[in-house]
């Protein structure tokens, strides 16, 4: 197993940092350009959620780990922010608590579409952890 772990401030500037970082790590699996884009998008969504919803744009710490085991990439992104009351509802397409900020409510949907597995754990007042997995190279026969 191959693993990286980073911690960074929950500010919007770090959204691109986080996705580029994971994309660079994932190149070890020799992904296609589409696969890299999928991974970048999913990371961007989870990190953006921590910045906007988790910490309400007031800052905090985001922890990100990524691991490679055989052909599978696992990404875990967590914050110690506000947490989610109703996870099932939050994951519905178009559901957002950020309509005043013009959020589309499509973040979790992006993560679901672009990754093979998505799971969300959250405790109100404690924080949120998003775990995503993707197998690389499975479409090429």
């Amino acid at each position, binding site marked *: 197993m191959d693993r990286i772990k980073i911690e960074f401030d929950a500010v*919007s*500037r770090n*959204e*691109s940092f986080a*996705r580029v970082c994971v994309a660079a790590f994932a190149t070890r699996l020799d992904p296609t350009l*589409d696969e890299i*884009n999928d991974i*970048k*998008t999913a990371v*961007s*969504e989870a990190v*953006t959620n921590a*910045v*906007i919803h988790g910490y309400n744009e007031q800052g905090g710490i985001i922890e990100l780990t990524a691991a490679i085991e055989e052909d599978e990439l696992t990404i875990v992104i967590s914050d110690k922010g506000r947490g989610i009351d109703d996870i099932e509802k939050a994951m519905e397409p178009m559901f957002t608590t950020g309509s005043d*900020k*013009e*959020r*589309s*409510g*499509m*973040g979790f*949907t*992006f993560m679901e*579409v672009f990754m093979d597995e998505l799971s969300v754990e959250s405790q109100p007042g404690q924080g949120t952890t998003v775990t995503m997995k993707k197998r690389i190279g499975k479409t090429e026969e």
Partner: protein
Amino acid sequence: MGRVCTAKRNVIIVRLCGDLDHHVTEQIRNEIDETVANEKINNIAFDFKNVNFMDSSGIGLIMGRYKKIKPMGGEIFVCNLNCQMQRIFGLFGLNGITKRNSKIDMIVNEEER
């Protein structure tokens, strides 16, 4: 991104570049809304030629502008979508609210900045 809006004929051209994420959308949104108000033009053309990446924040930006200008009789046009952008537009139903138009493409592509 620096300033991105230019008014030309009856359309506001928004020349996006780089990564369209939460970090940049707020500034772009403000600039577009200001330009719409100042120029009294309701049509917006997003030029994706130099966009490498877009996440759901970009969808929020486009949907938000759509909701704003549609009641005033405006339209949203998109130009120069690469494969990745076309994929995202298709997956997330943006084709229903945005238009592609060869005349608008010509206006957008007429001259480089």
